[in-house]
C-alpha cells in the first residue's frame, strides 16, 4: 500500500525535538519545503499498524516532545496529498485520503494550496480558475505552454503524477549533563568538584561518538540572581574529563562573584573529531597541498560551517580596522 503521513506543526513549536521524536518512532522522516514533516509509511503496515493508528501515535509523540503541541495529520497516497490533508484538518486530528479519493478531495480546494506564485494564482483567477479541479480541467499542454514550468509541476502534483521525494533528516544529538543541588554551592572549589561527575558523563558520551570537545557552555542557575553563562573554548580540543574541568576552573576564576548556585548545566556546543591533529595549513607540512585540501575538507564535513576559515580583505579603507577583512570558508 502506498501511504505517506504528513504532520503540520505550528511554527513556534520546538521543531528539533519533534523531529527527534518522530525519527525515534518512524523510519524515513523528512522535512518538506513548507516545513511539514513527512513520513514514508510504505511497507510498514505489518510492523507499525494501520496508517491512521500510526498518525495518532505520531500526534501523541509530538505532543510529548513539544510540550503539548498537537499537529494536524494527513495520510495520502503521495506526500503532497498527505501534506494538504494535514493542513486542512483541525489541530490534533487525522485526515485520511483513501486511494482513489484524491481528486474528490483536491478538486474543491483553492489554488493557493499548490506551490504557485501569487501572480499566477491571480492570473488563473482572472481566467475563472480558482480551484484545483478547474485547474486540472485545463489541457496539460496548455498549462506548461502558457504558465511555465512551476505550473506544470503543480499540475503534476495535483494530478498525482509527480511524487515528491521524502528527504531524510537526522536531528543533531546534544551532549549535555545537568546537576542540581539542594544546598546552594557558593564556592568555586566546591563547584568545580561538583562538576567533575558531569564532566565525566560528557567525556564518556564524547568517547562513544569519537569526538573531542571544542567549545563548552556552562549555565549556572542561582538563588535570587540571574543565571550565569560561561562559554569556554578548549584548545587543543579534547575529550578528556580533566581538560574540561580545567577549562571550567579557569573560566570560573575570572568571574567576580559566584553567588549561590543551585543547578548547573554543562553542554558541549562544538566538537571536532577526537583523533584530529592540528595541521599547519600554511606551514611547511601544508606544502603538501593535496593533503592540506583533503584535511580541510575532512574538517569541514566533521565540524560543519564556520569552523575552517581564512581571512579575505573586503574593504581595505574601512574606517574600523577590524572591518578590513572578513573570515570565509577555506573550502565549500
Amino acid at each position, binding site marked *: 500500500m502506498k501511504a505517506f503521513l504528513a504532520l503540520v506543526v505550528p511554527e513556534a513549536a520546538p521543531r528539533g525535538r519533534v523531529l527527534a521524536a518522530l525519527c525515534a518512532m518512524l523510519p524515513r522522516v523528512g522535512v518538506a519545503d513548507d516545513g511539514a514533516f513527512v513520513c514514508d509509511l510504505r511497507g510498514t503496515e505489518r510492523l507499525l499498524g494501520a496508517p491512521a493508528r500510526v498518525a495518532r501515535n505520531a500526534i501523541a509523540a509530538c505532543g510529548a516532545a513539544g510540550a503539548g503541541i498537537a499537529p494536524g495529520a494527513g495520510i495520502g497516497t503521495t506526500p503532497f496529498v498527505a501534506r494538504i490533508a494535514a493542513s486542512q484538518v483541525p489541530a490534533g486530528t487525522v485526515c485520511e485520503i483513501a486511494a482513489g479519493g484524491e481528486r474528490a478531495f483536491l478538486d474543491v480546494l483553492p489554488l493557493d494550496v499548490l506551490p504557485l506564485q501569487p501572480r499566477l494564482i491571480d492570473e488563473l483567477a482572472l481566467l475563472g480558475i480558482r480551484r484545483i479541479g478547474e485547474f486540472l480541467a485545463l489541457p496539460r499542454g496548455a498549462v506548461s505552454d502558457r504558465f511555465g514550468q512551476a505550473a506544470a509541476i503543480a499540475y503534476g502534483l495535483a494530478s498525482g503524477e509527480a511524487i515528491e521525494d521524502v528527504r531524510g533528516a537526522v536531528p543533531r544529538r546534544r551532549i549535555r549533563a545537568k546537576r542540581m543541588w539542594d544546598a546552594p554551592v557558593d564556592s568555586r572549589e566546591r563547584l568545580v568538584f561538583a562538576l567533575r561527575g558531569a564532566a565525566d558523563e560528557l567525556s564518556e558520551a564524547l568517547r562513544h561518538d569519537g569526538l573531542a570537545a571544542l567549545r563548552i557552555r556552562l549555565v549556572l542557575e542561582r538563588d535570587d540572581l540571574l543565571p550565569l553563562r560561561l562559554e569556554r573554548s578548549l584548545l587543543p580540543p579534547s575529550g578528556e574529563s580533566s581538560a574540561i574541568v580545567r577549562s571550567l576552573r579557569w573560566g570560573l576564576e575570572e568571574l567576580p562573584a559566584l553567588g549561590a548556585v543551585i543547578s548547573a548545566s554543562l553542554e558541549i556546543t562544538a566538537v571536532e573529531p577526537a583523533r584530529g591533529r592540528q595541521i599547519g595549513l600554511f606551514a611547511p607540512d601544508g606544502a603538501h597541498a593535496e593533503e592540506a585540501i583533503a584535511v580541510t575538507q575532512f574538517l569541514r564535513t566533521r565540524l560543519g560551517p564556520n569552523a575552517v576559515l581564512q*581571512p579575505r580583505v573586503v574593504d581595505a579603507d574601512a*574606517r*574600523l*580596522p*577590524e572591518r*578590513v*577583512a572578513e573570515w570565509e570558508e577555506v573550502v565549500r
Partner: protein
Amino acid sequence: MSRLFADPLPAHMEWHEGEPGALRVGHRRLVVVEVVRRWRVDGEWWADGLAREYLTLRTADGLLCDVFGDRRTGAWFLQRVMD
C-alpha cells in the same frame, strides 16, 4: 607593514595632566612620548552604535601604535602596531 588585531587587545591608559602618559597592555607598560594623530569614528547609531576616539601613539621604545578608547565605556584597546 603593520599588525592588526582582529579582536583589539584590552589596554589600560594612564593619563598625565589630560594627556596620554602610558599604555598598559597585558604585562607590558608602554610610555607614550607623542600623540601623533587623534581622530574620531562615531556611528552606527541605528544598531548598537560605536563611538571611538583613536590615537596614534609613539612610545618610548620606538613603537608606533593605534589605540582607541570607547567613548561610552571609557575602555581602551590596542588595535594596530606599526613596524
